[in-house]
């Protein structure tokens, strides 16, 4: 009994030291990671300055018409920065991007949409479903505001519409009810609930992490998702770079 107690003491001592060593090594790993991101951040600032001042000739000329529909996902904590959002939209307008969807999970931008649109010139708020081709042919700028409720919850509403149709067809007999469970019918049901189903070509994420925060799943099949960093530190040069690189991308779509 006493012998095992004596053996346990150095063991617990060793294991405590081992844990401390592991923790130190883990902190060091993260220190290296943070240093890396600091250096990358500084490089991005310099690059952005070179691009926005026109010194970097490669980014001077590009055709932004390839970005037919752009989604901007903002972290809800930063979505309160209305002036920044207005500035971002005006930068995009200057670059020739005419149709934008502003998304944040909690719907902060949705609540302040009048305040945002007020500060911009000749911008229409897009409500409900729209056709991408018809929209693109319009010259005027449109802004759509979306939030988490336009995603998963909209699918549940659309499911209820399809349920109604399903019940109706089932009453008529036969096995036709299965025919309504297809992607086109789903899209139509979503439109009928008042949701837009236009798929953005490009999505810019402003926030600490590159994730889409619940942007309607039905719209981001092949959307290129790019992380832009914090909205408070947004840079014009980085925006130009992203849009330029998008216009150079060639997609296979699984083939």
């Amino acid at each position: 009994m006493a012998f095992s107690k004596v053996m346990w003491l150095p063991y617990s001592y060793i294991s405590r030291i081992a844990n401390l060593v592991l923790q130190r090594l883990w902190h060091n790993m993260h220190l290296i990671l943070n240093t890396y991101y600091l250096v990358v951040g500084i490089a991005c600032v310099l690059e952005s300055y070179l691009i926005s001042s026109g010194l970097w000739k490669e980014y001077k000329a590009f055709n932004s018409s390839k970005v037919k529909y752009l989604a901007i996902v903002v972290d809800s904590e930063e979505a309160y920065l209305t002036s920044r959002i207005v500035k971002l939209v005006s930068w995009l307008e200057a670059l020739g991007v005419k149709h934008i969807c502003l998304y944040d999970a909690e719907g902060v931008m949705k609540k302040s949409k009048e305040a945002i649109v007020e500060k911009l010139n000749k911008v229409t708020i897009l409500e409900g479903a729209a056709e991408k081709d018809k929209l693109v042919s319009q010259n005027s700028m449109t802004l759509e505001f979306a939030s988490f409720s336009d995603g998963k919850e909209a699918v549940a509403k659309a499911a209820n519409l399809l349920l109604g149709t399903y019940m109706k067809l089932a009453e008529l007999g036969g096995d036709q009810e299965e025919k309504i469970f297809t992607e086109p019918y789903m899209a139509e049901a979503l439109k009928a609930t008042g949701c837009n189903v236009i798929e953005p070509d490009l999505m810019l994420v402003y926030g600490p992490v590159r994730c889409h925060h619940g942007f309607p799943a039905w719209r981001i099949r092949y959307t290129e998702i790019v992380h832009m960093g914090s909205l408070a530190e947004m840079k014009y040069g980085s925006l130009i770079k992203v849009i330029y690189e998008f216009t150079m991308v060639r997609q296979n779509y699984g083939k």
Partner: protein
Amino acid sequence: MEKIGGGRTSELFGGFVTFLRKCLFKVISVGPIPNHIAFIMDGNRRYAKKKNSATVTGHRAGYSSLMSLLTYCYELGVTYVTVYAFSIDNFRRSPDEVKYLMDLMLEKIEGLLKQGNIINQYGIKVHFIGNLKLLSEPVRLAAEKAMKATANNKKAVLLVCVAYTSYDEIVHAVQDSCKSKRKEIQMLPGSLVRRGASEGFREHEKINDLAIHDIQESCKDRLHGSEARHLLEGSFENSSADVATKTPNGLIEEVEGCEMQRKVPSIELADVEEHMYMAVAPDPDILIRSSGETRLSNFLLWQTTTCPLYSPAALWPELGLWHLVWAVLNFQRSYRYLETKRKKMRED
């Protein structure tokens, strides 16, 4: 004598490398470890082109890369790993390549069940996620056999997405929700069903034997990426005469009018989520897409609400330990922020 000596040295070296790797994982485990990692295995064909070999070489190299990464994930303590093996969109590739991939899948699924394989070593339960009816019979049967054989494994889970797209998953979940809701409605007391469901419909219905010509016109553009749907349903046009209904718009409008009158159970978000193929696993904590592409390509669009997306430039066969370590360290860096987001969403 030399060969045996050489074999022993490489065995020792391999053992030493494994020991170092386990030490590395021990250090990383001080921080939070992701519970579920998803991979989009992109870049096999580009890898083959880079090495001036046939596409099949790329796919085989991709398979070895998959096995190594699975080993690393399970060693690190990740419980769920999901891989995007074959998309419904991939059926559009050349018939030879599709056939090769199906044969490779069959070979590998059968190999999974052999003794000494990683599946048995780590006690992994295998799920094949997707519209399995689209697969050829031998592959589907092998997949079902593998799922049955590993059903009792409890230590870790491997989800292989084949014949999968998020759109298909969502539509399928909605379909299953509707079917189960219909059963629920039918079990309600008779009077409620008659009054709620049928009368509401009958008052406003104007059902004609219309061909669904309008929906075909508006939906033609939306058939892209869904050729496989034709495999299931046969020609969309041929079945039009059978469907005694209006266009979805017309029908949906009428049904909306009926909504107020009906007092029948309705589908909630939880019902749809319950019927998703991926309901067998929690949402992924990290999604890694190789070859630097920044899109999700119809993969886990529903499940990646608060999931960080990483796109290392390396092609899939080149993806290795350090890419995984990098992704996990980044996950740890943004863990607190994402946990706050998830908590907020659960409260809502």
